[in-house]
């Protein structure tokens, strides 16, 4: 059924259709509506789930982990400072192999105190062992949430479904909300590999000596490397069930492009518009909107990007003392595979708008330089 809903509610519907059994969350702008709708669904019986109110995001993730060990499908959502407060528990979820699915609404980190979008909150959690999806439409948010449960539960690795504050979280779009029966057929009940049960008492996540710790980490990485094939496979399965293919990235006019933009999130949709405008003006520009950031899609990046003469990575984030995080990841993936220069741009921090004009400026710079003059090319800073 088609509905006009905001990005936050697309996440709620995704968790509802996935039949999440335990939802635990603490409110934070711009995330609050996600769990507000879910709490209403739990209260009125639409969703047969336990909604746990907690005193912090740290406890929200802790209770999701506890419920997951007991064999429940679990969901939570947060933003920014809340995600940072969860940091310790994110390691517990991935290290303990508990396939929690979480929505993160990208909100810039304070101070200065802010509620607007950038990606530093989720990208700061890059090395916690979570799968990260970056969405660009409300439909993609809903579909990816359902897919995330399937991928996470098949490999016992938690997933973060990430969307931009306001430009997606509070923006209403038409979303095809699939039938529950179809979702049930796509996503069967969670049957964990091991769980807490009085019939077979055992302890989880206890002291692990140097004799076994490395093996546990090896196994996590071994399964992390199976995530990309699992996303592709479940993406095809999703298309067969619902008619929408879920992929690792949008490749827009990349085949014959001289300059390929690398983007993510809603800025990636704006880039599509900008690319069409620039194409109409005779500029050979393409756009690779990356949807999966962890695990990093090395094969995709190495297949698509070397076709260009120049690569322009647009980051709505920064790793201080280095440069944009997507730029550093793209450079590391391409190292030894191509000599095409990679330009790293930073734009749109703290919710500053990224518009088609932003991409025109980025393409102008890339076109007129053989190599970037600076490690970071800042776009839109008031100089």
């Amino acid at each position, binding site marked *: 059924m088609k509905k006009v809903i905001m990005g936050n509610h697309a996440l709620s519907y995704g968790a509802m259709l996935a039949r999440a059994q335990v939802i635990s969350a603490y409110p934070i702008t711009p995330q609050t509506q996600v769990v507000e709708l879910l709490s209403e669904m739990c209260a009125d019986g639409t969703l047969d789930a336990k909604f746990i109110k907690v005193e912090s995001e740290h406890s929200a993730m802790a209770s999701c982990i506890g419920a997951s060990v007991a064999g429940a499908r679990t969901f939570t959502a947060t933003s920014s400072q809340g995600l940072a407060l969860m940091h310790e528990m994110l390691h517990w979820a991935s*290290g*303990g*192999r508990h396939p929690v699915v979480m929505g993160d609404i990208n909100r810039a980190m304070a101070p200065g105190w802010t509620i607007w979008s950038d990606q530093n909150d989720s990208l700061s959690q890059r090395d916690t062992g979570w799968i990260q999806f970056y969405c660009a439409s409300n439909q993609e948010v809903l579909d990816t949430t359902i897919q995330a449960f399937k991928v996470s539960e098949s490999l*016992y690795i938690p997933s973060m479904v990430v969307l931009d504050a306001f430009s997606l979280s509070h923006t209403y779009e038409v979303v095809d909300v699939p039938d529950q029966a179809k979702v049930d057929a796509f996503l069967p009940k969670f049957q964990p*590999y*091991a769980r807490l049960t009085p019939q077979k*008492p*055992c*302890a*989880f*996540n*206890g002291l*692990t*000596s140097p*004799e*076994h710790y490395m*093996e*546990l980490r*090896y*196994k*996590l990485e071994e*399964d992390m490397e199976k995530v990309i094939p699992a996303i592709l496979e479940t993406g095809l399965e999703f298309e067969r069930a619902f008619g929408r293919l879920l992929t690792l990235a949008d490749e827009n006019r990349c085949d014959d492009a001289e300059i390929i933009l690398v983007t993510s999130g809603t800025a990636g949709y704006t880039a599509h518009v900008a690319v069409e405008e620039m194409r109409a003006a005779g500029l050979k520009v393409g756009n690779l909107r990356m949807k999966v950031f962890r695990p990093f899609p090395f094969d995709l990046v190495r297949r698509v990007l070397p076709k260009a003469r120049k690569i322009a990575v647009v980051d709505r984030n920064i790793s201080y003392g280095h440069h944009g995080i997507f730029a550093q990841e793209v450079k590391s993936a391409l190292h030894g595979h191509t000599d095409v220069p990679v330009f790293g741009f930073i734009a749109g921090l703290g919710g500053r708008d990224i518009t088609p004009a932003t991409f025109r400026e980025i393409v102008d710079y890339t076109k007129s330089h053989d190599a970037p003059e600076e490690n970071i090319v800042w776009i839109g800073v008031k100089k």
Partner: protein
Amino acid sequence: MPKKKRDAKKIVFESVNDVPKMPMSLGSMLHNKTGTWRNIRPEIKLEDCIQCGICWKFCPDMSIVIEDEWPVIDYDFCKGCGICAEECPVKCIAMVEERK
């Protein structure tokens, strides 16, 4: 069964393939008899016991089991914390010096 080497205290896996995905106990406590840590041991005077089950309920190590409706202490795992003796409403559990 996965290949593992058992000694008195723990299970050691010989291959990464045998290690479970999750960090979990796999019953290693069956071999690690923590009762040896005990300095004082609880002894139940069954003549006074009213079979209330409070000692069973409170034991943090599940070292009191109920057999034929009577409490029995599993000295392989009881660490001698004394909670059962403290909680017993008729004080029929005494903590006595451990015999070495």
